[in-house]
């Protein structure tokens, strides 16, 4: 697997792939950090509306350096701007949008995803200062909860597993995972492979995955542009 680093998708490419599945008019929450990158790759001709937990709908890209207004931030505490049609609301209304199932898509990062759809992305276990934020709400909120992640940890251990060993964020909540190697749906407690990098054999992919990969439909190549 020494070639893995040369074939695998970059973070930007994973984000690009996830962005392709966001429909025109979708209400979307992007988790703090890596998932925020998905907004960069909004498909031309489509208009997604981004929600942020701290009470803002339809924010735009970051302002120019020096132009930040720190009362206009997203959940990652980054300065943002407003699109026409934006609205402000308080935190209970913001999480009513989440918990009430009004978001079309939430895209989150992950430490581990289990074949059941269980997600672990908030804690690496005891020690240090814990923090949870809105992750546990988001996984029960959106109509579609997707994860973007490297396929394995830096040590090469699978992040897609039979059972999560890290503290759970939510039970049976993830429905699709975009990794650096593949696109995998979670259906009826199984990982169902939809797309994989052409350069990677199915056996190689399986060996990097902690639970069986099933194939229900004709397998597609995971094609992503240079970014």
């Amino acid at each position, binding site marked *: 697997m020494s070639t893995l680093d040369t074939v695998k998708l970059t973070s930007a490419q994973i984000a690009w792939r996830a962005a392709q599945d966001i429909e025109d008019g979708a209400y979307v929450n992007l988790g703090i950090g890596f998932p925020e990158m998905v907004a960069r790759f909004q498909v031309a001709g489509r208009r997604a*509306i981004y929600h942020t937990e701290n009470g803002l709908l339809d924010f735009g890209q970051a302002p120019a350096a020096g132009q930040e207004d720190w009362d206009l931030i997203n959940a990652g505490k980054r300065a943002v701007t407003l699109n*026409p049609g934006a609205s*402000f*609301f308080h935190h209970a209304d913001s*999480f009513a949008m989440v918990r*009430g199932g*009004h978001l079309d898509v939430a895209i989150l990062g992950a430490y581990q995803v289990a074949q059941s759809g269980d997600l672990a992305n908030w804690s690496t276990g005891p020690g240090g200062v814990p923090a949870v934020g809105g992750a546990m709400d988001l996984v029960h909120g959106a109509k579609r909860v997707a994860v973007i992640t490297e396929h394995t940890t830096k040590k090469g251990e699978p992040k897609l597993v039979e059972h999560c060993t890290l503290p759970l964020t939510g039970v049976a909540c993830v429905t699709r995972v975009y990794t650096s190697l593949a696109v995998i749906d979670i259906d009826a407690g199984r990982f169902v492979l939809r797309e994989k990098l052409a350069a990677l054999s199915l056996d190689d992919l399986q060996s990097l995955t902690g639970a069986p990969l099933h194939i229900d439909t004709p397998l597609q190549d995971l094609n992503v542009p240079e970014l």
Partner: protein
Amino acid sequence: MDKTRDSLAAAVADIRDGMTVMIGGFGGAGSPIELIHALIDHGARDLTVINNNAGTGHAGLAALIEQGRVRKMICSFPRSANAEVFNAAYLAGQIELELVPQGTLAERIRAGGAGIPAFYTPTGYGTDLAKGKPQHDFDGRMYVLERWLKADIALIKAEEADQHGNLTYRMAARNFAPLMAMAAAHTIVQASRIVPLGAINPEHVITPGIFVNAVVAVPNPAQEEVLTREQVVYP
């Protein structure tokens, strides 16, 4: 991404028999008369309707009931002045009634929109309206467990709307509308004015567009109280 619709008929086209329909308004304020009349014209029947009241006179919600389209009302105060249509249907056994205290009705609808399946409230404890409901002691006081209310459709009267469905309301016509917009799978809005995207100050949006599915312009909307006083009959 443009939620505006060309006609009232188009806006209500997907309502089907047997659906649960939340209708905004308290008394005449906020009642979406033109959308209700479009629903009458459309023909859906066997509806469960959630509204604070049960209509007055012979237009709007009262007309929907008079046309025999409503199987069940969920409301807090059906016995208003000029509510003869509902009263007659109820006393004749032609319509079912679920009576809910007004604050519990509002909170159940909000809960439906906010993903809260059940909550405890002091309201109704020890009364006939709490009979059969689970009760619980918290900190030495008794509370009643109430379930969320959701709907297939909400019909809402707004003042301003933009093409993404961001809404403002007019004075006390706001009442249940923001809650119902949250609690319905499909929220249909009639707005007195459709304004360009960005024309509503983001600080002043009352219902963000995420809760809205369809918007139709009704520039000079009828008002139920006025129709009732003028003894207007629909259709």
